[in-house]
């Protein structure tokens, strides 16, 4: 009864205090693999449905607003992808040159295409994609302050979100299963450690840059091997503490856009630097059409010792972006990554096209080739896939 009362109050508030806007999408996704699975129990084809509704509203002439965004996926094969998340559930208050945000939120820092080194506030929703662009909502108290000399963001991050991992049926996945529930932490506060972040960013003519500092639980786990109850080897994620200093910068000069991200990360085990930098050069209106062709080149370097590096350690990314500028907003991004030391290659293609007024078709393909035994990508060697998605927006 008490619960009902609360719901009624909540709904009444929704309908009166704030003009609610509703939008979102429902999507049907088909995963098709070209080769048989590398590991037992992994699926070969898969059909899934996702639902992403958003609500928002405002009061006090827009000085106060609330917004929420949910994400749900039902997966026919992979239990690890059957999940729901609150990407956003936030109250925003505007007070002159200050913006206050309280609640769950997702944010994006950085400029490069091939990987996102600086972007460390949100945990990755890894079962949604290996590119790190799907993220879990992070509890935060966030103050954004505008000054003549730039913008400063102060974040207090109570509570930690664990990374999502594929189940035994999941594909692509690591060779050993990850038992996320058994995760260990360096801090005795475990997943309730309070993290902090500060970002200073500024625009000077055609130059934009940001400097970030983060202290708290590393979102990227290390893995320890263990045996499960059946005596099978499994991976247990370990979340260490880290301090990270990051820089992201972008310069626009005519047809060129130069991009750079650099980090210094300090953990108990290791201090290291990593960078991703490159450019995008665009040919506008190629062959007297409306089509723009962007060419992208980025190099990534990671100075950790061999064996403990990330996937992008000595890698070159070369890509092409086609924007058709047509009624259906058709676009295509194709790129490949080559490891300059191990010669492993992976190719990726992403395309989008609107169908009618409210549908969107997406195609995504990934091919791994010539993967070296010592490359972390070896786990995905047989996981070349084609993904087709049809989404209805409302």
């Amino acid at each position, binding site marked *: 009864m008490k619960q009902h009362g609360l719901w009624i109050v909540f709904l009444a508030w929704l309908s009166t205090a704030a003009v609610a806007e509703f*939008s979102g999408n429902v999507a049907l996704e088909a995963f098709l693999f070209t080769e048989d699975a590398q590991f037992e129990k992994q699926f070969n084809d898969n059909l899934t449905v996702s639902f992403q509704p958003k609500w928002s509203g405002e009061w006090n002439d827009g000085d106060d607003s609330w*917004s929420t965004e949910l994400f749900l996926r039902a997966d026919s094969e992979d239990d690890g992808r059957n999940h729901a998340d609150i990407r956003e559930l936030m109250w925003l208050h505007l007070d002159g040159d200050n913006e206050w945000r309280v609640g769950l939120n997702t944010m*994006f820092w950085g400029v490069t295409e091939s990987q996102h080194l600086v972007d460390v506030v949100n945990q990755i929703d890894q079962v949604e994609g290996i590119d790190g662009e799907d993220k879990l909502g992070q509890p935060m108290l966030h103050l954004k302050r505008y000054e003549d000399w730039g913008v400063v963001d102060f974040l207090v991050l109570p509570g930690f979100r664990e990374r999502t991992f594929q189940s035994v049926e999941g594909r692509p996945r690591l060779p050993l299963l990850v038992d996320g529930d058994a995760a260990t932490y360096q801090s005795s506060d475990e997943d309730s450690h309070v993290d902090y972040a500060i970002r200073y960013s500024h*625009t000077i003519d055609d130059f934009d840059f940001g400097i970030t500092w983060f202290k708290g639980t590393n979102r990227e786990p290390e893995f320890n091997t263990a045996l499960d109850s059946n005596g099978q080897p499994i991976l247990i994620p370990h979340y260490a503490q880290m301090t990270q200093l990051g820089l992201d910068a972008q310069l626009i000069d005519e*047809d060129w856009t130069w991009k750079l991200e650099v980090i210094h990360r300090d953990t108990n085990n290791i201090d290291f630097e990593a960078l991703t930098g490159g450019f995008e050069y665009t040919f506008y*209106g190629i062959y007297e059409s*409306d089509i*723009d062709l962007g060419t992208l080149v980025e190099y990534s370097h990671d100075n950790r010792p061999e064996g403990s590096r990330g996937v992008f350690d000595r890698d070159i990314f070369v890509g092409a972006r086609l924007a058709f*500028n047509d009624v259906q907003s058709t676009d295509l991004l194709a790129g490949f990554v080559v490891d300059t030391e191990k010669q492993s290659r992976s190719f990726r293609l992403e395309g989008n096209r609107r169908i009618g007024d409210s549908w969107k078709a997406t195609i995504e393909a990934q091919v791994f080739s010539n993967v070296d035994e010592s490359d972390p990508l070896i786990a995905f060697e047989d996981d070349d896939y084609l993904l087709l998605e049809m989404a209805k*927006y409302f």
Partner: protein
Amino acid sequence: MLKLKFVLLFSTLALNLPSVLLAQTAEEKGLEVATAARVYDRGFSDFTADMVMTLKNKNGETSTRNIRIKTLEVEGDGDRSLSIFDEPRDVKGTAMLTYSHGLKPDDQWLYLPALKKVKRINSRNKSGPFMGSTFAFEDLGSQEVEKYTYSLKGEEACGEWQCYVIERIPAYKHSGYTRQVAWIDKEGYRIVKAEYYDRKKALLKTMEGSDFQQFLGHYWRPGTMEMINHQNGKSTLLEWKNYEFKTGLSDRDFRSQALKRLK
């Protein structure tokens, strides 16, 4: 003192010269009209409006875009403007911020709601189509005087008004046009019609403005603008609704990082 004498002498001489030598050139007259039109339009402070774009291809199939526009007048520089997309639904929440300048390239940012990312974008692509329509980015941008060189071609009746016929040649880089011809009414500086000539100097597009409304007893704005592309048979009808002037917008509403909080 000596200088003043010179001026006086010069003026006296000038007054006695035959009027044909005194007459302004077509270029000077064109610039004068363009400057007067700009001066007439200054002082609006800010405005908001809703824009409905109907794109039509040569088979008559249509597609609609709904965009909210907010514009802030900036002293001594181009205007700042925000476009917030409501439809098509897959781009709902996308917002574009432009700080327009005279000959210098505009500053432009795009907010991508799917990634929650504010991206500084290259504004070099002035001649590209806006949202797949027959309007190019440069057709919808802030019209600073220094963006063109002008020439007055004549005066003629344009519907119910008398119009100046002005030829303007883009002075900024990367325009898709070699020239434009605009019919601007002499009373309220309404752009009644404009023709756009492509890089091969052929007629590419014609824009016609209609249903003009006056705001704050001074500023004229078109209720509809139709842009027809003569070369591919496509057209776009742009309907402006819910114009509001002096709404109290400020610099704070036009910050790139504030794009995230637009709904």
